[in-house]
């Protein structure tokens, strides 16, 4: 029989299982009240920003792709957008479409990894994907099949499945022929079928009743679901371009984490990622994805982080559907890249990484040497918001014993899919009851 826990408790989860990278959680409860919830994230402390200084303006797409094994395309695309902005260039048309198609591949593989191997086991009460695969082999195999097609799309356009090498400032080193993309079409059609099955599958999970109550922030570009461009908008009226970010958002060092905590001035924590994108861009989904979302019980008012697994599945479906549309309208451009001449100045660029908006800012001299670089990843922006949500979640579940509370809180964190990129991971778990 479970005993009611003490009113004074401290527990720490030293390493969070099934979170990409390194992280830990620390909770303090005194007199039956939650006093402190800290999510400690060991993020690369601006290492890459220092590494980029003095490098050529052509190098960030390759260097920053190495920051994250899960979302290298996001780093490449945001860096391209920022440097091209500094140089006064916009890449659109077919080259823009190809970038979007490459990004669709990354959304498919990143979201599918999270859905099947990291998040779904929570809803079955399993410790992880291995137990899930043991009991539901065909389901997990479907996930791997879907993810593989995302990998292959990144491989086709990026030149490699991990750390793509075909992206350059101004476009690509090589663009595919129309025949190459058409040859890929049947695989992407199959992925779309698998994605639709995935939406239906995850929609049937039993979701804990929990709500995110804060501000949701995502890019918005009229006429398209936000991936490679847009203005940053929110559920509380934010509407800014990338160069205005610093006027509206502050990043603060906090003692317990190497990641900076971001807050919107005068309001506070905010949340990026699938739930935010969906809430702010529901109307821009393809009809197929929108219909699947409705059938799955989602609306733009969805605020339950546990149901973000359904939103991810809808976004995978959208990525497959839109990818097919891009393939169908593709005509091989005359040249694989626009010529980009450097000039002295500052450029900002952002895109929607699978986990939310990723901002890059570069300052160049007139020869294109990088004077300063700044990278604002989505997980560090979300960290304060996740802590806030954890605080509420722990308050709502104080009756649980430490182990169960820690386990459930871990599930909350996993539902936000934090990516502490570029990390090693040595698992260790301790619980300290005061």
């Amino acid at each position, binding site marked *: 029989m479970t005993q009611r826990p003490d009113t004074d408790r401290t527990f720490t989860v030293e390493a969070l299982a*099934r*979170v*990409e*990278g*390194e992280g830990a959680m620390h909770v303090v409860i005194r007199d039956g009240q939650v006093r402190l919830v800290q999510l400690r994230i060991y993020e*690369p*402390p601006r*290492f890459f920003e220092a590494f980029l200084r003095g490098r050529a303006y052509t190098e960030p797409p390759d260097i920053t792709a*190495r*920051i994250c*094994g*899960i979302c290298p395309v996001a780093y490449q695309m945001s860096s391209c957008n920022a440097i091209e902005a500094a140089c006064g260039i916009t890449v659109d048309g077919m080259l823009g479409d190809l970038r979007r198609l490459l990004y669709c591949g990354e959304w498919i593989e990143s979201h599918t*990894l999270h859905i099947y*191997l*990291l998040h779904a086991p929570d809803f079955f009460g399993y410790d*992880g*994907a*291995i137990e899930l*695969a*043991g009991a539901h*082999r065909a389901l*997990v*195999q479907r*996930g*791997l099949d879907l*993810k*593989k097609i995302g*990998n292959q799309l990144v*491989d086709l356009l990026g030149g*490699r*499945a*991990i750390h793509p090498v075909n992206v350059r400032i101004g476009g690509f080193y090589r663009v595919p022929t129309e025949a190459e993309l058409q040859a890929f079409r049947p695989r992407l059609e199959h992925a779309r079928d698998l994605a639709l099955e995935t939406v239906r599958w995850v929609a049937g999970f039993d979701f804990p009743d929990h709500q995110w109550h804060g501000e949701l922030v995502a890019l918005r570009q009229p006429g398209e679901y936000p991936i490679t461009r847009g203005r940053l908008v929110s559920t509380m009226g934010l509407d800014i371009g990338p160069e205005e970010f610093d006027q509206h958002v502050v990043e603060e060092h906090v003692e317990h984490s190497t990641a900076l905590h971001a807050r919107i001035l005068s309001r506070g924590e905010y949340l990026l990622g699938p739930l935010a994108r969906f809430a702010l861009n529901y109307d821009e989904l393809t009809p197929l994805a929108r219909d699947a979302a409705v059938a799955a019980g989602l609306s733009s008012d969805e605020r339950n982080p546990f149901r973000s697994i359904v939103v991810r599945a809808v976004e995978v479906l959208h990525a497959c559907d839109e990818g097919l549309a891009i393939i169908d309208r593709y005509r091989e451009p005359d040249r694989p890249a626009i010529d980009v001449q450097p000039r002295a100045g500052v450029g900002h660029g952002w895109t929607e990484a699978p986990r939310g908006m990723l901002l890059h800012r570069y300052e160049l001299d007139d020869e294109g040497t990088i004077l300063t670089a700044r990278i604002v990843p989505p997980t560090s922006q979300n960290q304060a918001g996740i802590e806030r949500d954890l605080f509420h979640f722990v308050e709502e579940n104080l009756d649980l014993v430490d182990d169960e509370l820690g386990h459930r809180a871990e599930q909350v964190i996993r539902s936000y899919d934090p990516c502490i990129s*570029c*990390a*090693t*991971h*040595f*698992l260790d778990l301790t619980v300290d009851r005061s």
Partner: protein
Amino acid sequence: MHLLRDSLPRPHCRPLLTPRIVLIGVGNPWRGDDGVGRAVIETAVGRLEPDVEVVEADGEPSRLIEAWTDVDLAVVVDAVRSGAVPGTIHVWRDKSALARAAPSIGSHALGVADGIALGGALDRLPSTLVVVGIEVGETSLGLGLSAAVAAKLDDAADTICGIVDEWLAAESLAQAGSKATSSPGLNE
């Protein structure tokens, strides 16, 4: 994703049916010694036959499973932290033990041991799997291996070549035995 490699003369004794052999280097070169798996593979590549496939991996299980599905011999090289002296070379051949070893080997959120366990659950493991672990020292952010680990690159590459040669020899013997009555010989 496969890398091209320099070709070397083939061994004189070789099976009639070319087996699929894959070397998988796991790790993050931006985390110091964590990149040793890929560095060892790069060192070993020039010493092996050209049809040995080479795959770089970040340790994510689904990529590992893709890399070794339908493969006869897979050699996975990864960074390891077990408390041994940096540069120590570990070799594991027991798939069951490897699958149970998570997270004491490997260095990734979902890593090699998870990949082996998941591959086992899905019946997608290579016929023979060998994991070579190199004990790490320094894994903070930055490129390059520590001196202790870098000094063992050649030894680790030799270990891999030995594993491949030993396996090929065993396969040749096995095929010679099974085809002795129907095949006149195995040599090219």
